[in-house]
């Protein structure tokens, strides 16, 4: 019971197959949920380690470039050699990986190749800005989209369903950067209702909430489309099941059927959808923040990629990957907690 398409093969089954043995086995048998959580976290850490190797290799494959890009026109062979030594780029790859990862574990993310500032002070406040943006978008998007999905899935093929599901099918296909640009043109340039770019003052984005409206609106429109379509499909499937038919035949009112029976049984898939949408949000933020020049971690990453500022890219990439894996683990655990059948199986 792992989250949809991001499921990881070896963690797919809860830990139930293990025969309880003496000692640790007995503990395992008594705390199946704890065992499940521990296993998921262990697999998550293993994955994070693998991703850190990939991030490192992906960004370090051309080691000469970092020194050359810092030195610019002064890149004589001698200066290059010195700069490579200062940056530690003359050491073998595996030593460099070790130094990098131990630095991160000690809270030292390195220094930006562009500005020379410590990476932690560059990304620190930007993480807060991004969390404010992502949080606001999620709080609006999730209840709204689940409600619309239920409304559409209740009567498949009805008028509400046709409007909601074709609308969401279209919105799902519109790239975030185009939607953002169109919203800027319409609401900021033509109607002057909102600012076109996010100028965040020293007090953070909440001192001027107006700047949040357009980025949040863009994220909500695209993100809702995913949730609506998946919740609609989930509810539609439940509504066709035997026990709903039974409840109908027993004369249970339709509203009660939807709220008490259908929603409850569609809860686990809904948690999966929300997790997938939050994972989409992780990537969507890169683009939406860039479109609105919002000073968050996503726009910073894109800038760092353009400037090939490797320490910044590595830190933000690792952080993003950790969040992505964390969402996955949380969703898996939540689903096991929500579905009693899985809890006893675990």
């Amino acid at each position, binding site marked *: 019971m792992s989250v949809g398409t991001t499921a990881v093969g070896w963690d797919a089954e809860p830990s139930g197959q293990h025969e309880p043995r003496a000692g640790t086995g007995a503990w395992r048998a008594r705390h199946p949920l704890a065992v499940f959580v521990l296993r998921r976290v262990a697999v998550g850490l293993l994955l994070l380690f693998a991703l850190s190797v990939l991030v490192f290799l992906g960004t370090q494959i*051309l080691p000469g470039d970092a020194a050359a890009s810092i030195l610019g026109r002064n890149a004589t062979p001698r200066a290059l050699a010195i700069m490579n030594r200062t940056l530690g780029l003359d050491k073998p790859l595996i030593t460099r990986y070790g130094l990098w990862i131990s630095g991160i574990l000690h809270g030292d993310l390195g220094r930006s190749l562009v500005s020379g500032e410590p990476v932690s002070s560059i990304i620190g406040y930007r993480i807060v800005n991004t969390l404010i943006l992502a949080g606001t978008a999620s709080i609006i998007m999730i209840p709204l989209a689940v409600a619309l999905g239920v409304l559409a899935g209740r009567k498949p093929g009805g008028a509400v369903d046709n409007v909601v599901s074709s609308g969401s099918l279209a919105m799902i296909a519109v790239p975030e950067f185009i939607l953002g*640009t169109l919203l800027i*043109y319409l609401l900021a340039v033509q109607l002057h209702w909102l600012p076109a770019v996010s100028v965040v003052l020293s007090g953070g984005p909440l001192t001027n909430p107006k700047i949040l409206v357009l980025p949040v609106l863009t994220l909500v429109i695209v993100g809702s489309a995913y949730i609506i379509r998946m919740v609609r499909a989930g509810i539609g499937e439940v509504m066709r099941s035997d026990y709903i038919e039974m409840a109908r035949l027993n004369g249970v009112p339709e509203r009660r059927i939807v709220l008490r029976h259908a929603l409850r049984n569609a809860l686990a898939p809904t948690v999966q959808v929300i997790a997938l949408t939050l994972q989409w949000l992780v990537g969507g933020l890169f683009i939406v923040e*860039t479109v609105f020049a919002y000073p968050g971690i996503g726009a910073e990453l894109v800038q760092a990629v353009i400037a090939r500022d490797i320490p910044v890219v590595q830190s933000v990439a690792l952080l993003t990957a950790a969040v992505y894996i964390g969402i996955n683990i949380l969703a898996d655990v939540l689903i096991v907690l929500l579905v009693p059948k899985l809890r006893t199986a675990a």
Partner: protein
Amino acid sequence: MIAVGQRLGAQRRLRFARSWSGRIGLALTVSVVAVAAFGPLFAPHAPTALVGPAYAAPTGQFPLGTDELGRDVLSRVLDGGRSVIGYALLATALAYVVGAGIGLVAGYTRSLADPALMRLMDVLLAFPPFLLLLVLTTGFGSSPAVLVLGVMSIHVPGIARIIRAATIETRGRGYVEAAAARGESRRAILLREILPNITGTVVADAAPRLTVSILLVASLNFLGLGVQPPNADWALMISENRPGMTIQPWCVAVPALLIIGLTVGVNLLADAVARARGTSIDEELVRR
């Protein structure tokens, strides 16, 4: 079951054209692809030539006006579609070739290669897709080759998994065992016995995957990390001309509408095909 199933599949595939959304999707896709494919033949100016003042309003000479550097917007629109469609198609097709190779080998061999390959796929699948593209671009620079290979590697794990599962299901069938008993090589068994019998499962999700590829390619080009200036590309045109869209909206609006037409069109088409087959495209679309 196999032969009959394929014939029924062919009939079902035509059924999508009966729904309205399927027809609209087909019309949108065909017209945008036509603009991209044949557009360069009709371009009045060279796409990179400076032919007038910057951000000039539409006139007889420049039907859609000029862009930030004074290049003809119509010529750039007609020239700028091949990159998005071409790279997305290429990346998706390559993903099927590589993913099929990995899935077939992992599914048929009963050796350690199977778990080794599949754990590698798990790691790739745990990578946030867009982040993978950004990391690759940092290491290897911005170029169409990196763009295509990056988008490809986002699709490979999913395809490999589906093909592996289908291969495992097929390898126990009589005709596969008969071929093995005849002493045919593993290569021949995989390519002639197994692959033709699992293509139906495999192609089912090709259209939503293409939509995802188009969205990824366009987004990366918009960020300036794919196609490089001065080349014409719809997504790149949007980011280049955004500062001037108050003065000259056409140089942003036309490429934007073409990209939307393409993605919405392919998506409507994919949805209609999936519904005719009794499946859904939603699962695939979420991963980008």
